[in-house]
């Protein structure tokens, strides 16, 4: 009985929570935070869409070790980013720099939004212009309305003075 309960409970263990592979030592909290930020922001070159923290590939392990050793040897964030860029290009950054090659990535969403806005505005304006005035007036009422509209109203003239 106890054994089957243990087996049943074991099913609830998420093996994914053991995905963090290495443990690195840091001197202070800031270094740890920088390391975590880097492995979240840097993309694994071997994998199509995983960051360094999520990948167990050889190259991701090497790069994590490299980030750690560069942080521990006092390299700045800019130096570490440049080191990665020199070797793997813009691919390694999940937020690539703005260059001629990456301009389309940065500008396309805004451009599409702009085009969408223009189309939406134009459609909305047209709808206002062409909206039919729905009046449930009989012919008799319509004629009366017409005569009222045509006759010069004294109120109106007073108001215009």
């Amino acid at each position: 009985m106890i054994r089957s309960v243990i087996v049943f409970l074991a099913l609830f263990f998420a093996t994914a929570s053991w995905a963090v592979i290495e443990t690195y030592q840091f001197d202070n909290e800031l270094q740890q935070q920088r390391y975590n930020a880097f492995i979240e922001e840097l993309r694994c070159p071997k994998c199509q869409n995983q960051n360094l923290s999520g990948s167990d590939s050889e190259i991701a392990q090497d790069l994590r070790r490299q980030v750690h050793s560069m942080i521990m040897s006092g390299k700045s964030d800019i130096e570490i980013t440049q080191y990665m860029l020199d070797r793997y290009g813009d691919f390694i950054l999940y937020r690539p720099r703005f260059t001629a090659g990456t301009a389309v990535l940065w500008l396309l969403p805004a451009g599409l939004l702009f085009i969408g806005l223009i189309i939406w505005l134009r459609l909305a304006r047209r709808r206002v212009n062409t909206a039919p005035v729905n009046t449930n007036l009989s012919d008799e009422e319509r004629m009366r309305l017409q005569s009222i509209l045509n006759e010069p109203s004294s109120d109106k003239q007073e108001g215009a003075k």
Partner: protein
Amino acid sequence: MQRLKLFLPLIIFILMALLFLGVQWRVKNGEYSPTDLPSALINKPMPSFRLPTLDGGVFSAADLPAEPVLVNVWATWCPTCHYEHPFLMKLAEQGVKILGVDYKDDAQAAQQLLDEKGDPYFASVADQSGQLGLDLGVTGAPETYLLDAQGTVLFRYQGALDQAVWDKHFVPRLAELKTGAGK
């Protein structure tokens, strides 16, 4: 005009479908691989290194011969490298100079494999830590770099070399180097 508007979604769909089919077609023909990365080293000098060789010596970037060479990153744990090996032997027989980079590997196992199946490399360096691989921007083995006589990286190929890849990517570049050198 109103008619055309009715068909606009269909037209857009067809254009998108053609675009995707076109990409797919290029993948199928081997003209484009979504997993290939442009190397950040193109037209830059080969990173400097100084590593032990498999046969117990030392080899550094300065020891590279003053002629076009291939730098082949491989390892015994890499199945594609085993597949590629016979073609590298063929290239070596044709006189192509290949530097072997034994990447994150057991040097003894690597030397044993070269003893048994033949050694296509004029030199084999053991990159046990993967530091040279990191400097080269290696994403996995095998990878092959083409260097010119000055040690500048001209081209990087990810994956196994074979005759088709060689003819398509390396032969034209080598021919260009030769005519360039002849001038």
